[in-house]
């Protein structure tokens, strides 16, 4: 390499001394850089930005996927909790001791978005319970009527039915 450098220097000197040809300062260093920039560009484009390199990009992608999955899972979990609360309240509604005040208090625990569903289920259950109780009372009237004398039966039935239906 040293011989080559000396050879190059001799050639440059010969051209300057014999032919008067000059070159700009540091020309060969700059020219080398220009040439390398032109031919080694494809390699440079292959060099990815630091945070896009596989060792960074893959864990980053995995983290993003995990974060998205967690978000979905947590959202679903919240919905299930809401449904669980509603179901719990429905069970309570089936209990006859569950009165209107309890309903108002328990409704405070229900999310606004679930309020319509909660209300519907409350009304349906209330009607069903009332209907069942009425049916049972009617059955009792007919059973009791068997034990009452024939002359009094019409008055008893009328009286019991009026009580049940009106009240």
């Amino acid at each position: 390499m040293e011989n080559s450098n000396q050879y190059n220097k001799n050639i440059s000197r010969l051209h300057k001394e014999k032919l008067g040809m000059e070159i700009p300062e540091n020309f060969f260093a700059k020219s080398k850089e220009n040439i390398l920039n032109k031919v080694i560009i494809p390699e440079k484009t292959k060099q990815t930005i630091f945070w896009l390199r596989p060792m960074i990009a893959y864990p980053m992608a995995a983290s993003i996927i995990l974060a998205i999955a967690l978000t979905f899972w947590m959202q679903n979990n919240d919905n299930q909790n809401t449904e669980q609360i509603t179901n719990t309240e429905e069970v309570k509604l089936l209990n006859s001791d569950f009165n209107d005040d309890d309903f108002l208090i328990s409704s405070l625990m229900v999310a606004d978005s679930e309020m319509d569903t909660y209300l519907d289920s409350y009304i349906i259950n209330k009607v069903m319970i009332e209907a069942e109780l009425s049916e049972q009372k009617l059955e009792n009237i007919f059973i009791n009527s068997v034990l009452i004398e024939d002359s009094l039966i019409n008055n008893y039935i009328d009286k019991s039915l009026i009580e049940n239906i009106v009240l």
Partner: protein
Amino acid sequence: MNQEVELIKHLKNPKLKNQAFKDLLDLYQERLYWHIRKIVITHDNANDVLQETFIRIFNGINNFEEKSSLHTWMYRIAYNESIRFLDKNKIKTTVSIEQDNNAYIKNLTEDSFFNGNELQLKLNEAISELSTKQKRVFHMKYFDDLSFHDISEILNISENTLKSSYYSAVKTIEEKILAQC
């Protein structure tokens, strides 16, 4: 020669190519520049042709069949690129600076990177009056310090013909310079 064989091997290896090309530039950039400069005359033109030459070398190294030495192959590319440049220029100016002595000297003296004294200008004028073949041979032998064997490979002319052209050119130049003194 061993260094050249090693360099070719590295240049043809994709993993080592870039580093080998840098080494190649260190070794031959300066020589090829001066080889080109004497044909295209001005520095700016020589710079353009030099870049084109090395781009061709980089892209074509895998096609190098090693029938000749690496440096003669590169000189041939540089020479061909220079001639191609002159041909393109000839279309614009209708005459090549290689064939027109006045155009040769005009281009030389108008170049901002020519700083020749009277004697240097006389030598340039004497060279410009040589035939194209004599001029090429004289440049390659005297200034580029290439062997007749290498010049023969680059120009595809027999060594004997080259020797004859060279000595004839030297004699002509001497006579012209002595006549002007």
